[in-house]
């Protein structure tokens, strides 16, 4: 009974997932398709852009400093991810290697941040950034983001499963906790560290809320730069789609290469 049903079941599955995939991917496809249309036929309805043109990309480079914005975004996302990776590694190491007074409290402080919406902290943080003179600087975007609770939790989980014998052997050898961290723990944790790094990089690349506050006037990351395209005289759609496509490109490139790791990192971060 089940055997005879399987082919039909499979067929329905293919149809459902196929349609869903098309619906999900179409806006992305349309973005790139529009970016390659000539400005004259930007409103064309043909599914495939023809003749191809890179005029949109040229125009986009005229309107905003795409290279500079991408570089800034890259700097912010890279430094944020690196900082978060380091602080989470240390914190997770501390939480799993020792038993100490206040351990439970520290853990609760990390978990508790899930309950504090960003909107509640934004005003005081904004005021501090102004007082520190970091308004409209990239540092102002990076510094408050230097700890990722998600990172702490994910690494803590991995480190709890870390073989204790390895740590004990290192201690017997007379290695300090610092040396153990870098010579024993990190080399054995390369895969989770890498997938966490990618996750943090993507999250920070796509971050909108905080950069929008700190860089309200300079608009010096690509996410905010896209707003420079809207003008009362009308929008240059093929240029805007070119810029938007470029804003997505680094993340998509990462995704193409490391698809499996990225998906599993996202799913695990969700399930925890």
């Amino acid at each position, binding site marked *: 009974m089940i055997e005879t*049903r399987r082919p039909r079941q499979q067929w329905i599955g293919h149809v459902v997932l196929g349609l869903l*995939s098309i619906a999900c991917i179409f*806006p992305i496809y*349309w973005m790139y398709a529009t970016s390659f249309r000539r400005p004259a036929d930007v409103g064309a309805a043909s599914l495939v852009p023809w003749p191809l043109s890179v005029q949109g990309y040229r125009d986009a480079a005229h309107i905003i400093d795409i290279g500079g914005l991408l570089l800034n975004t890259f700097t912010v996302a890279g430094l944020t991810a690196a900082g978060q990776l380091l602080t989470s590694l240390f*914190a997770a190491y501390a939480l799993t290697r020792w038993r100490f007074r206040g351990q439970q409290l520290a853990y609760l402080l990390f978990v508790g941040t899930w309950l504090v919406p960003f909107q509640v*902290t934004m005003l005081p943080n904004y005021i*501090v950034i102004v007082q520190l003179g970091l308004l409209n600087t990239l540092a102002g975007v990076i510094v408050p983001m230097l*700890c990722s609770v998600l990172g702490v939790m994910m690494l803590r989980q991995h480190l709890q499963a870390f073989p204790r014998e390895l740590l004990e052997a290192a201690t017997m050898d007379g290695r300090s906790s610092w040396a153990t961290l870098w010579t024993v723990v990190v080399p054995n944790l390369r895969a989770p560290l890498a997938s966490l790094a990618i996750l943090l990089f993507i999250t920070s690349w796509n971050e909108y809320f905080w950069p929008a506050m700190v860089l309200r006037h300079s608009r010096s990351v690509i996410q905010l730069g896209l707003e420079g395209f809207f003008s009362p005289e009308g929008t240059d759609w093929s240029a805007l789609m070119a810029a938007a496509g470029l804003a997505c490109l680094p993340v998509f490139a990462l995704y193409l290469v490391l698809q499996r790791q990225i998906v599993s990192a996202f*799913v695990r971060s*969700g399930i925890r």
Partner: protein
Amino acid sequence: MTTTGIFVEVPAVQALPLDGRAPSGRPARWRRVLRALPPYLYLLPALACVVFWTYRPLAQTVQLSFYHWDMLPTSPAEPAGLDNYRRLLSSPQLGRSLWLTVVFILGMVPFTIIVPTFVGLVTRRLRGRTAALYRALVFAPMLVPPVAGAVVWQWLLDPRYGAVDRLLGTDLNWLQQTGPAQLAIVVITGWHVLGFAVLIVTAGIAGISDDYTEAAALDGASRGQTTRWITLPLLSPTLLFLALMTVLLSAQWSFPVIDNLTQGGPSGATTNIYYFLWETAFQGFAAGSAAAAGVLFFLGFGVLALVLVRLSDRLGVHDN
């Protein structure tokens, strides 16, 4: 050893409290402190960051909510008592944005729960390369930066050349009309998170052992019965988790979409609770009211989260 002990014992009686104990006692305590120190040092960077950028501002927001302040450094904050809360709770805008948030959360349910569950159930037998490809495609929107997603949708919904109007054969100015604008915000946010929800459900279904469904099939249960009485109950923790995320994060997810596409308009039709907060703080320059609203949301969402976590503990069927 004993001889040396005896040998030193005599003069040591006097010397111990002065020289002997101080040098040996202090290093011992020092050493104990030093030995206890490492975990705290490793914790310090992350913990300091969390305390300074999350808990300090939380406390400050609570404090600020009892003051009137227009955010100018030159003008001092004035104590306001419960005035901010009173005004906020009687403001019709708050009730409206709260209601819109609820409607919006309900609108997200198809994208975060219903469709993913359906897709997960229909495709659970699919394996191999094609299935992986589908999942990769469905997941892709999750990676699109919110602003890029917003401008792409603005183009898709363009009243003159938009692909959506052409596809549906409609002639709507989506973002300028109340109903369509609300629908658009829901669909765009749903588009972003759908793939994520599908993957979560897929992982949940993959985690259910085949033994149960096979046993049910042997007992003569139909596919529908197996799904209804075995798969869905075992999937309930996953579904409750998704429900929790929907309730707590929907308003958060939609924020960049709203900010880029409608700015809360037309005439307030897409001003959800977070957008209301944002407007109060940065357009109204009323720090006290914004802080009061922040505190209320913090409490509201906290209670909601606790209730949902409790509920999922009570209702969840766990597969041991």
